[in-house]
């Protein structure tokens, strides 16, 4: 049916046809196909365009290392760019688009960049685009103009602005042994560990386990290798102590043997079932890890090595054996090692035609010769490919005699006809996770590969990861690694028999053939061998400089194919060995991971919402809610048609006139109990609490160790050894942590217990001249008159049968009480207070009115206690006890902290009847356009219903010394400039008569 599909063979399900589109064209494949294999089957060889030169590219690999065939998936109405076609399982209705091309993949305007060639080699942009020194394009303007176009030419796929509709989730897993890689070695390791009773997780990035066994064509114990692997997998799956995860790439190896993995749960089906995640983020804490991550094939760098039709030999073999696809009608192999011979034999067996095997080595093993014979060719040894020719697809290659020892070419280049070329530059173990875990790979000259280092965390290697490339080794090392993790010795038990005998895959040390034309090292980023040499010429010789200067290895494939060849070329240029040239450190992730997957359950749910017990009442009564940390608090209860400003002025005025009620449940509340509680409070507060009488409350101030103000609040003495501390809403957590630190670390001898009771209590503050009258109407079990409940007194009673604790304290400056009850009665009590307040037109008020009332009184909050102000700056020095030391007393008197010219608290009054503005500055002189030097800033402002003016609090240089003077409010950001008077921060009722009345 399709031009490239062989008539039989492969592990795809030929009975099931799957329809999909690529660039709008309707195509089909079979169940078990990847997008890459299905496209190949349909004769599509052009799958992408490269990053810089926009060169046409075909698929190069068959797996995670794919540099070229990146596509954008269109799914559920959103775009997902840059997905390797080799990693996409096709499903009915799949839609994919090629990218980085305009107007079409076959005909791309960006390909004009190829003409730039040598002009735009590595690092060219550092040397130009600086623009003129003078004139309208001076400075950075010329560059920014160029950048506009460069940015549009760069980038790969296009992303949407539409929200990703997917769901992601996290799973925390624990196991004794995590096996990474479900090839033969991984399966054997998992089995050995599982049999020893260990809890095992096995993670395989492909949809099916087996790895190399899926396309090796070997037999294990007389069975086809892939069958053997799936039988073993089935046995493992049946065990209770084994969890098998396919489509799961372990991408990060973090400290403490914590590994991160991505499971592509529903990417392979058309629709994610409702309630299920698209992808799952696994955090796996394993006692031991088996790294059985296999090896990746390296290319050989030679001119024209990037043409569509050129692919890795192992990939050609896999397409043939696993997907029943032939790389072309005439395939040439080019190699420095024996593995390409197996690939050639596989192609032949699958019905393909092997036109030639070009081998840089002068001599080859007898096993390789036999395979060549099986492939129907006699190998062209001592030769190299020095060029390719390509129309729409590859049409011929050029070969020349080559001496591997000296790296020299001789004789004439002659053409060989072909439509596909399969290349093998040897194999490199996948060491990324070991490197992430903190160890540095070691170069092995004999094997011409980096090998795993000594472990720095608890892992053991197995299979090709170790640099031993054969099924026998994989079986043995896999089993031993599993046993080792189970705390057992290596086994001498018989291993399954393998046929045929594995080859020795040691390559000749040839990774580049130098000739005319662009020879690609990093395909995706278009880094050519000459770029590496240019970097060398310009002194960018360290491997990190090379990477950064040329962008080698920085593409989406992260250098999986380009890393070693790039190093080899640099080492050759410098005349040193590869290990002397260095290796880069691998960093997470091993393969790209959806950002949403790592956000997991927090995608769409960043932070939990925190509600007071009275929340629903607020919402039901028209409150506009505002975030305060994680809390939601009423901003205002605006009546119909009211603005926020009108609403808060009405609310605040009601408090001054009659009575208002505000929800203060969010205040931090900490139970401080124990025989040393009073001593403890004396140390953490600047003022004294040991003298406080039971049944009374006191306002307290805390400093940091450096003498800067930290937090304030009232603390109530409920019993001799029982205090209830309140903190600001914002600092509740920080204060708790600070107190726990003090008790655990500074003063472990103190017998004090702390418990957060913020959520235990609902709180309502009743404020205004009629506040007492309201309480009198609803409180039973206690009197609330001035004698029973004086300022800062506490009483216990009941409202509607529910126990309440009432403290007479005031933030608003009015006669005011805080009524606390158990949270479950919060709404009940609130409603009872509302009812009791009805005759007085009791008014619920929100944060804005609360703010206005405190500004009128000059009470400070987080806007003034901003981490830079001292108690003196806020004129709270009366709270600094001279009789006892406290946290912060040691350093609070440093010279710069007592300087007269510090920013200190004042009040300001608008003289032009206009609003002030939080964050506006104050200047002594200036104009709206020339604002002059700032002498301070407004921390908070409001319209004061009591004073009938716009007023504010400010931190101003010199503070009190400026009382009675005038200044200008300067707010260039909001284009406001106007005169203000600086006054005391006690703007209203400075003597507190209302509060004590």
């Amino acid at each position, binding site marked *: 049916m399709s031009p490239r599909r062989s008539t039989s063979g492969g592990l795809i399900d030929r009975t099931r046809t799957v329809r999909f589109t690529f660039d709008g064209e309707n195509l089909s494949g079979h169940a078990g196909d990847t997008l890459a294999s299905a496209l190949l089957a349909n004769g599509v060889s052009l799958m992408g365009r490269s990053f810089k030169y926009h060169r046409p590219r075909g698929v190069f690999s068959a797996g995670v290392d794919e540099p070229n065939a990146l596509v954008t998936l269109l799914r559920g109405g959103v775009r997902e760019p840059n997905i390797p076609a080799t990693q996409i399982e096709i499903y009915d209705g799949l839609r994919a688009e090629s990218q980085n091309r305009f107007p079409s993949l076959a005909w791309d305007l960006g390909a004009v960049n190829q003409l730039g060639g040598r002009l735009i080699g590595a690092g060219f*942009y550092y040397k130009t685009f600086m623009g003129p020194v003078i004139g309208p394009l001076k400075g950075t303007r010329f560059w920014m103009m160029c950048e506009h176009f460069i940015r549009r030419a760069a980038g790969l796929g296009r*992303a949407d602005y539409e929200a990703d509709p997917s769901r992601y989730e996290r799973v925390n897993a624990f196991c004794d042994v995590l096996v990474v890689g479900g090839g033969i070695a991984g399966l054997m390791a998992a089995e050995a560990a599982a049999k020893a009773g260990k809890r095992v997780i096995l993670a395989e990035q492909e949809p099916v386990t087996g790895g190399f066994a899926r396309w090796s064509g070997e037999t294990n114990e007389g069975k086809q290798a892939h069958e053997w692997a799936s039988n073993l997998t089935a046995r493992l799956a049946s065990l209770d102590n084994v969890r098998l995860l396919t489509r799961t790439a372990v991408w990060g190896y973090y400290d403490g043997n914590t590994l991160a993995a991505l499971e592509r749960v529903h990417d392979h089906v058309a629709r994610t079932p409702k309630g299920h995640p698209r992808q799952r983020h696994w955090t796996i804490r394993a006692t031991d890890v088996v790294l059985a991550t296999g090896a990746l094939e390296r290319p050989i760098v030679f001119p024209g090595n990037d043409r569509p039709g050129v692919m890795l030999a192992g990939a050609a073999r896999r397409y043939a054996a696993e997907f029943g696809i032939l790389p072309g009608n005439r395939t040439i192999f080019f190699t420095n090692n024996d593995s390409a011979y197996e690939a050639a034999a596989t192609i032949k067996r699958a019905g393909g035609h092997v036109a030639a095997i070009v081998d840089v080595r002068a001599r080859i093993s007898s096993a390789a010769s036999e395979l060549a014979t099986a492939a129907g060719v006699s190998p062209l040894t001592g030769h190299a490919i020095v060029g390719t020719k390509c129309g729409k697809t590859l049409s011929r290659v050029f070969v020349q005699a080559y001496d591997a020892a000296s790296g020299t070419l001789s004789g004439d280049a002659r053409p060989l006809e072909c439509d596909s070329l399969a290349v093998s530059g040897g194999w490199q173990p996948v060491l990324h996770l070991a490197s992430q875990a903190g160890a540095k790979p070691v170069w092995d000259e004999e094997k011409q590969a980096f090998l795993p280092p000594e472990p720095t965390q608890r892992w053991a290697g197995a299979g090709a990861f170790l640099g031993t490339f054969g099924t026998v080794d994989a079986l043995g090392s896999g089993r031993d690694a599993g046993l080792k993790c189970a705390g057992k010795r290596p086994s001498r038990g018989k291993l399954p028999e393998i046929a045929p005998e594995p080859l020795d895959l040691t390559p000749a040390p040839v990774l580049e053939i130098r000739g005319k034309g662009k020879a690609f090292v990093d395909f995706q980023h278009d880094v050519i061998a000459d770029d590496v040499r240019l970097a060398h010429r310009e002194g960018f010789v360290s491997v990190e400089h090379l990477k950064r200067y040329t962008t080698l290895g920085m593409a989406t494939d992260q250098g999986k194919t380009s890393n070693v060849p790039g190093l080899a070329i640099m080492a050759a240029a410098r005349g040193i060995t590869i290990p002397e040239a260095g290796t880069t450190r691998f960093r*997470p992730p091993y393969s790209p991971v959806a950002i949403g997957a790592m956000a997991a359950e927090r995608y769409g749910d960043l932070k939990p919402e925190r509600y007071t017990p009275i929340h629903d009442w607020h919402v039901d009564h028209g409150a506009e809610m505002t975030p305060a940390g994680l809390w939601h608090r009423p901003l205002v209860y605006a009546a119909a048609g009211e603005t926020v400003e009108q609403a808060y002025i009405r609310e605040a005025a009601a408090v001054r006139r009659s009575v208002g009620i505000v929800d203060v449940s969010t205040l931090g509340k900490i139970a401080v109990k124990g025989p040393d509680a009073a001593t403890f409070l004396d140390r953490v507060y600047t003022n004294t609490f040991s003298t406080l009488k039971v049944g009374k409350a006191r306002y307290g101030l805390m400093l940091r160790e450096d003498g800067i103000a930290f937090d304030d609040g009232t603390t109530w003495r409920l019993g001799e050894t029982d205090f209830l501390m309140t903190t600001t809403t914002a600092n509740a957590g920080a204060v708790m942590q600070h107190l726990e630190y003090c008790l655990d670390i500074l003063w472990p001898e103190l017998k004090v217990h702390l418990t957060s009771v913020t959520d235990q209590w609902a709180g309502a503050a009743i404020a205004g001249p009629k506040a007492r009258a309201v309480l009198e109407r609803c409180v039973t079990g206690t009197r609330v008159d001035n004698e029973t409940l004086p300022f800062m007194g506490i009483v216990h009673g009941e409202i509607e049968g529910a126990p309440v604790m009432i403290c007479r304290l005031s933030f608003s400056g009015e006669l005011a009480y805080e009524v606390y009850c158990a949270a479950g009665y919060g709404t009940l009590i609130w409603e009872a207070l509302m009812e009791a307040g009805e005759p007085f037109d009791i008014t619920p008020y929100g944060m804005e009115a609360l703010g206005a009332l405190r500004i009128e009184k000059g009470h400070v909050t987080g806007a003034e206690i901003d981490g830079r102000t001292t108690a003196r700056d806020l004129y709270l020095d009366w709270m600094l006890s001279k009789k006892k030391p406290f946290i912060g007393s040691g350093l609070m008197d440093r010279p710069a902290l007592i300087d007269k010219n510090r920013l200190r608290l004042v009040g300001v009054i608008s003289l032009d009847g206009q609003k002030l503005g939080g964050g506006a500055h104050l200047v002594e002189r200036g104009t709206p356009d020339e604002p002059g030097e700032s002498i301070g800033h407004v921390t908070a402002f409001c319209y004061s219903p009591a004073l009938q003016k716009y007023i504010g609090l400010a931190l101003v240089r010199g503070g009190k010394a400026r009382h009675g003077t005038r200044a200008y409010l300067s707010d260039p950001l909001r284009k406001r400039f106007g005169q203000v008077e600086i006054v005391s921060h006690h703007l209203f009722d400075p003597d507190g008569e209302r509060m004590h009345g």
Partner: protein
Amino acid sequence: MAEYSALSLLKNALSGNRDWKPAWRKPDPKPSYDVIVIGGGGHGLATAYYLAAEHGITNVAVLEKGWLGSGNIGRNTTIVRSNYLLPESLRFYEFSMKLWENLSHELNYNVMFSQRGVLNLAHSPGQADAFIRRGNAMRHSGVDAEWLTPQQIARKVPGLDTSKSARFPVVGGLLQPRAGTARHDAIAWGYARAADRRGVDLIENCEVTGFLRTGDQITGVSTTRGEIRAKKVALAVAGSTSRVLQRAGIERFPIESHVLQAFVSEAIKPFVDCVVTFGAGHLYMSQSDKGGLVFGGSLDFYNSYAQRGNLPTVEDVMSEICAMFPSVARLRLLRSWGGVMDMSMDGSPIITRGPLPGLYLNCGWCYGGFKATPASGYSFAWTIAKDEPHAINAPFTLSRFERGAAIDETGHGPIPKLH
């Protein structure tokens, strides 16, 4: 040596790019110099450049343990800005900004400074007030700043969640239009090349193992490449400050080293045109010219010299960027890396003479060192050359803690991890 220009590119292209010369020499160390700068990162290289260019001091060596630019200059999120609150910081960073604006010309090296704007999103009225305070402080110091409404922000940054239903709705944003990004490595390479051309010796793979002293006076260093004497020894090794000072016998110092991770997504076509920061958490993000979204968040919050972080921070950062840009959830993280930060006790740097005679110190850059590079080098060179601070670095002393004159932008106090 050839000037870099479009013409030189063309000329060299015609000759097969075979005539390019090394960007800097690779000299062996001389026995002595007028000034040794320890640390071949951005700040050290800039210091050497300004010593030569501004003060005519060219008998200078920069000693680098690894390769030039191997520290934080090449491990940051490339943001350049001067949107600070406190007058001391504003003066310093705005001076730096002005140097940035002419840096490519000055160095004959395109550092790709792109003044695309930095936008700080505010998510509550209180935060808006704090940002406006800062913006107004900038305007009063002659620095550009604008306040944007949510509607203006939505137009400027498509894809950003500016909806009212967001967990922390955007209430406004502080924009510094002249701020932006630059190519991080280019700063190191540009300064290196320019310093080298003025005669400075840049010596790589040369680790300082100890200090030579006569009494208290520092007279040189011993290194893995031998002893080198100098009249003045200057330290610019942010990330390793405590380690190097320990070799000079200073055991305790107001610095902690912390690891900060940074992240880049796969390259996509232009997606966001300015730098955006998230105020309901800690996240900053921009798009590189190559197309990757470059972003970072908070420290890992523990002392570390490993250029490697852990997973909880990764997850926090990802959850915040998705909250900001819900479409980014679908994009893929390509790479993460870690840098070691010199976290100081008030979040501000130290650029000063001392703490020993003959020694000069430049450290404590926290997250903010990249944008500071030009001014840091400029003022440090000044301090070294004249033995007194330049006006812009005068407040950034070591003794400020003793006096209580911390320069604390965030107000977090002497808890380094919080700055």
